[in-house]
């Protein structure tokens, strides 16, 4: 049953990755990266259970944290760039 969840999460990660590649605007990419991070958290948690060593949840915690921080960082630096560049090649 953990295997089912792992497979599903991997599929979703792939989808988010494709969106990050295609992503017509920068914001699509940010969103895809965010979603990818969430899925990584889930993946780590589930894999920890799959391998029978659920002590590894600390890592999942760090991932959630890093995910949040990096989204904020991207937004912060992005808002500084001049307005004519904000919407890229539509």
């Amino acid at each position, binding site marked *: 049953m953990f295997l089912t969840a792992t497979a599903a999460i991997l599929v979703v990660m792939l989808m988010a990755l494709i969106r990050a590649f295609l992503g017509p605007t920068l914001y699509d990419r940010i969103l895809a990266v965010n979603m990818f991070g969430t899925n990584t958290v889930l993946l780590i948690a589930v894999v920890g259970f799959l*391998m*029978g*060593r659920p*002590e*590894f949840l600390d890592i999942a915690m760090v991932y959630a944290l890093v995910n949040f921080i990096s989204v904020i960082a991207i937004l912060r630096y992005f808002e500084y760039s001049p307005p004519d560049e904000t919407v890229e090649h539509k």
Partner: protein
Amino acid sequence: MNVLGLYNYWVVMVLMMLGFYIVISQGNLIKKIIGLSIFQASVFILYISMAKVAGGTAPILDESISTYSNPLPHVLILTAIVVGVATTALGLALVVRIRESYGTIEEDEIQAQDEEA
């Protein structure tokens, strides 16, 4: 089985060569640094795949478990990652200084300016 068992190394090599390719073919200095860090990451993956023992788990001792993966490469890579980021920061700082004195971070433009001077 033998061929499949080496698959991991091949991925490492492909990644490594990608990083290498970025470093030598791209003119943008930031991209070069990113290429370097991809190269670095491929080396990390190489070490970690070597450390794996089939059927083993992470090297945190517990009475109920008997096989562990090799902890030594983990230690080496752990420190290497942190040192890697420190050196990356140093490289980026150099890039910033180059940008300030040349006004560009493209390699060929920098070279052109050097030849003028």
